[in-house]
């Protein structure tokens, strides 16, 4: 498979987190293929379809997986077999595992103690305040909703004020209110100078939180850099529509003159129209149909799935 990486914003300085030509394979299966990236203070989104290798990348960053090739460092220090990195690192895994028999305060305080902080109780209180969990802090975690558990886990990961916070699919299973709350929290942490990386397979989540994105497709870094540039690349890709009308042939003739139309195929079942610009085409189509007196029976965008967006990026 050959891929081209889109022109990324090459960072001029060394990042807090550095991946240098990192690959990871399981037997014959390559999960992560030659990825290099630098993470800087602020919020970065790690975007990619399910199974793309996001979790593998996060686990390697967090020292829970050895890279098969390449190096993963935080502040220049390797993360594998080096527990000292956890002084500067917080991890929130996708798996929702907590010591349910502890209260939120006990749990976060225990984490503070294991970080050997000087004032574990004070640090726990600050972390719980940050995630707005002080009201429920004396309740056992097993009585919490998913969102509350997630916030408690974030508090535990933040209690030692790490420079780097990694979150694996932090919005999964959250309701919209919890989601908004978590997004605000990540924003705030990013603004405070923390280096935050969160993974997601949902474009809109990343759009709302992260200015910078790293897009992973099939184990490779497909794009990296400013979100808006990548978004533009994604929206400017050709869009394919299946169109059926009262007179397909006449409609095709009129459409081919339209600037936003890149190509048309006439088939027995209708037209397949390739539009170069989603917006102008969807505005032009009804106008043309009206002018020609053609009745539109069906207009279906046929490649709107996220996977097609990713595969377009991959084709570069």
């Amino acid at each position: 498979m050959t891929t081209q990486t889109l022109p990324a914003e090459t960072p001029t300085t060394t990042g807090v987190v550095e991946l240098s030509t990192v690959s990871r394979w399981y037997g014959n299966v390559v999960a992560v293929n030659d990825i290099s990236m630098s993470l800087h203070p602020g919020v970065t989104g790690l975007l990619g379809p399910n199974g793309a290798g996001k979790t593998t990348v996060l686990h390697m960053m967090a020292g829970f997986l050895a890279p098969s090739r390449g190096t993963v460092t935080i502040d220049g220090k390797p993360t594998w077999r080096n527990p000292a990195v956890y002084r500067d690192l917080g991890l929130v895994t996708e798996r929702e595992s907590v010591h349910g028999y502890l209260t939120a305060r006990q749990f976060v305080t225990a984490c503070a103690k294991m970080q050997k902080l000087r004032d574990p109780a004070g640090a726990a209180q600050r972390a719980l305040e940050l995630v707005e969990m002080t009201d429920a802090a004396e309740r056992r975690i097993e009585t919490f909703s998913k969102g509350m558990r997630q916030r408690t886990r974030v508090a535990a990961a933040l209690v030692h004020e790490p420079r780097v916070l990694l979150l694996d699919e932090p919005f999964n299973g959250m309701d919209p209110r919890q989601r908004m709350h978590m997004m605000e929290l990540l924003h705030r942490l990013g603004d405070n100078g923390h280096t935050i990386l969160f993974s997601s397979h949902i474009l809109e989540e990343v759009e709302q939180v992260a200015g910078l994105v790293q897009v992973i497709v099939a184990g490779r870094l497909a794009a990296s850099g400013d979100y808006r540039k990548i978004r533009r690349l994604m929206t400017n890709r050709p869009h394919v529509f299946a169109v059926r009308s009262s007179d397909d042939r006449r409609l095709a003739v009129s459409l081919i003159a339209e600037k936003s139309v890149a190509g048309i195929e006439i088939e027995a079942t209708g037209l397949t129209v390739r539009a170069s610009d989603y917006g102008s085409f969807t505005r032009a189509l009804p106008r043309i149909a009206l002018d020609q007196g053609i009745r539109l029976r069906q207009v279906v965008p046929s490649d709107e799935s996220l996977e097609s967006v990713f595969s377009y990026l991959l084709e570069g």
Partner: protein
Amino acid sequence: MSTVAFITARGLFGRRRALLLLPLPLLLIGLAAICRAYDVSPDMWGQAVIVGLGLVVVLPVVALIVGTGVLGSEIDDGTIVHILTKPLARREIILAKYAVAASVTAVVSAVPLFVTGVLAGSVKLGAALAVAAVVGALAYSALFLLFSLVSRRPVLVGLVYILVWEGLLGNFVSGTKNLAIGQYVITIADKIAPTAILESTIGLTTAIVMSAIFTVLGTVAAINRLGSFSLAGETS
């Protein structure tokens, strides 16, 4: 007590499987008490109850439940990550968990064995059994802690060790006797309080040295394995 030990102990007794620790010791004391109450000679029941149930079943099974409970369960449900993402030497984590496992196993098995020994013979026999149980707890705990790190099914591996290696092969293949913790335990108890009930098959020095080797090697290997602990990749 370290925070890791605190969380481990809370986790151990907070789970329902902690209740599994009760019936076996109670059965052991109960059987001995019944035999004693009916004035049956200890020569008739001593070996079956003390060795057959106490040393061969109660001690290793308690050690297995506790030894896999302090680490295997946390690996199973993923909570281990909260302990591993701390700047703690992996040695510190394993030693805390080992301390909890060994001491809980020692108490839960040595106390009923002491009572049974007293009922079957003398305080000396009781004390000998208790000491042997403590040595057994130290060695078994290290082994089962290690099993939690080398296998996703530590309880199964532990049962195979107890039933097949110690139980079955130990009776037929004489060489395995030197590599079975159960034999060390019987030997140590027998050398402290020689009775007709216990029958040691190996030397005392071998028993002590081998127990120490199991304990140290198991713990060191567990520390090393925890250092390379990997999380599984994509779940979907």
